[in-house]
């Protein structure tokens, strides 16, 4: 059964299309694995077993009747618990929304259902996608499948853990400062923050209107491409949604990168941030792989990473506070301490500072656009170090240990995290690939080519039986 749970979407969909694999059998395998292991990982807040089996039976009947909906038909997925699901609780991992049952699906929830996916359940998240690894909430925090004593990253922590552990074939995260790429990095999977506007946010609980993105988290970049084909669509009721042609994401994937120009803002990890030696070595090795694939490596210079981060922090805290103000002033006790503190920071931001952050954001977008006329993509690490112990993220991260992700929420660029190796103690290392707006297909191609040229995608976490048993 475990073997089925470690198939990629691409592999499983080929077998399903050839009628060698039944969506019902596949879904049952995932539900059994969740039952066996999730008590030790806490990836799920809610497992929707009955719905999953009903979805799977429907998919199987349609496929057997010759009515295939495409490569996601019959694929078991999970949704971060801030994606609205009609009739199914959507809690944001918070006591405040413990009993919140939406009447309608998020647009993305609907699109994935229409593509024939099977919903396994709702996954753990940092509270309201901001709260950090918290122990004062109605549900425990997710753990890292590579070592459950370690943190999975966040805020899409449960989706990252579930996909890495083979408890979902794919899932959805959201990303306001790195919340798809960060857990993807620490859990050793691929995660795409699409271009701002390419994927609707309607029906996803907001954190920061101008920085929020929804996107896929999968074992491979190829699987992210298959998910994006269902997700990318203009939504006239999301004012941030762009009405642009949707590429064939999977068709764009190829192993050759001949002629590709990769920009490397080395100052990000050499001077702007205290980046770990193993992460630095992994990114240099990855650049060598890209050279061997035919790419040209070009040094580029951007504003210091801290400038992007400060800009993003002022905007995200202000917008988050505006969203939460009514709840925070009325029922602050229903928030966990970390979320309450982080969101309340917005009450301390002066209006001119918010406006100046928006002004600077425009300059940073223009700066990056100018650099990207000289290169096709930019490559950086995703995080400065592999995962620390569970609950030590806040102490571990600092201005000198910041993620490399927030900069590209500020610019709205497509940005992918994919594994770049392992630390000496067996935890995933990662890199980030950033593209021009709406060149998400090229970003996925660059990630896919690297994954095919290296063996990192062949290694899966081994979840020790005693741990799973002891935790039950």
């Amino acid at each position, binding site marked *: 059964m475990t073997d089925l749970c470690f198939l990629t979407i691409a592999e499983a969909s080929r077998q399903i299309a050839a009628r060698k694999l039944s969506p019902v059998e596949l879904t049952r395998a995932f539900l059994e694995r969740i039952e066996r292991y999730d008590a030790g990982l806490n990836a799920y807040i809610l497992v929707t077993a009955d719905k999953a089996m009903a979805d799977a039976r429907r998919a199987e009947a349609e496929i057997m009747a010759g009515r295939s909906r495409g490569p996601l038909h019959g694929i078991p997925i999970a949704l971060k618990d801030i994606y609205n699901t009609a009739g199914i609780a959507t809690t944001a991992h918070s006591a405040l929304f413990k009993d919140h049952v939406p009447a309608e699906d998020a647009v993305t929830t609907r699109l994935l259902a229409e593509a024939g996916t099977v919903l396994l359940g709702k996954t753990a998240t940092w509270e309201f996608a901001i709260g950090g690894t918290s122990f004062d909430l109605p549900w425990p925090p997710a753990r890292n499948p590579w070592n459950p004593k370690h943190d999975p990253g966040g805020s899409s922590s449960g989706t990252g853990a579930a996909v890495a552990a083979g408890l979902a074939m794919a899932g959805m995260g959201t990303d306001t400062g790195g919340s798809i790429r960060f857990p993807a990095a620490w859990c050793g999977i691929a995660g795409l923050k699409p271009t701002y506007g390419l994927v609707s946010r309607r029906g996803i609980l907001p954190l920061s209107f101008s920085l929020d993105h929804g996107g896929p988290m999968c074992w491979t970049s190829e699987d992210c491409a298959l998910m994006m084909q269902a997700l990318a669509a203009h939504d006239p009721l999301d004012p941030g949604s762009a009405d642009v042609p949707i590429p064939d994401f999977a068709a764009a994937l190829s192993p050759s990168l001949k002629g590709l120009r990769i920009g490397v803002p080395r100052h990000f990890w050499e001077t702007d941030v205290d980046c770990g030696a193993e992460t630095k070595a992994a990114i240099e090795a990855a650049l060598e792989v890209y050279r061997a694939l035919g790419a040209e490596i070009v040094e580029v210079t951007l504003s210091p990473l*801290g*400038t992007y*981060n*400060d*800009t993003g*922090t*002022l905007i995200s*805290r202000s917008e988050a506070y505006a969203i939460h*103000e009514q709840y*925070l*002033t009325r029922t*602050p006790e229903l928030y966990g*301490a970390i979320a*309450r*503190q982080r969101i*309340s*920071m917005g*009450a*301390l*931001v*002066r209006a001119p*500072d918010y406006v*100046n*952050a*928006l*002004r*600077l954001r*425009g300059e940073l977008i*223009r700066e990056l656009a100018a650099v990207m006329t000289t290169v096709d993509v930019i490559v950086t690490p995703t995080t400065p170090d592999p995962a620390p112990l569970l609950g030590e993220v806040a102490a571990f991260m600092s*201005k000198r240990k910041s993620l490399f992700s927030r900069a590209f929420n500020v610019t709205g660029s497509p940005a992918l995290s994919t594994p770049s190796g392992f630390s000496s103690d067996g935890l995933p290392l990662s890199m980030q690939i950033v593209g021009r707006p709406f060149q998400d297909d090229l970003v996925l191609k660059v990630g896919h080519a690297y994954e095919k040229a290296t063996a990192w995608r062949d290694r899966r976490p081994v979840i020790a039986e005693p741990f799973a048993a002891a935790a039950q």
Partner: protein
Amino acid sequence: MADLSVDRQLAAAGLKLPPGDVEKLAALAADLAAAAATVRRDWSYLTEPVQALRLWKK
């Protein structure tokens, strides 16, 4: 509000937070002040590009 202490700013915003939160926010306020200094450039509306929010599309 820069001349007000953090607890007075929070009270002015209508936030009634536990003492631990106020203490934490007082520390985080330094980060916000540093961020504000970063974005406080020598802005000039005489030279900068037009700043606008796109309100509608044709």
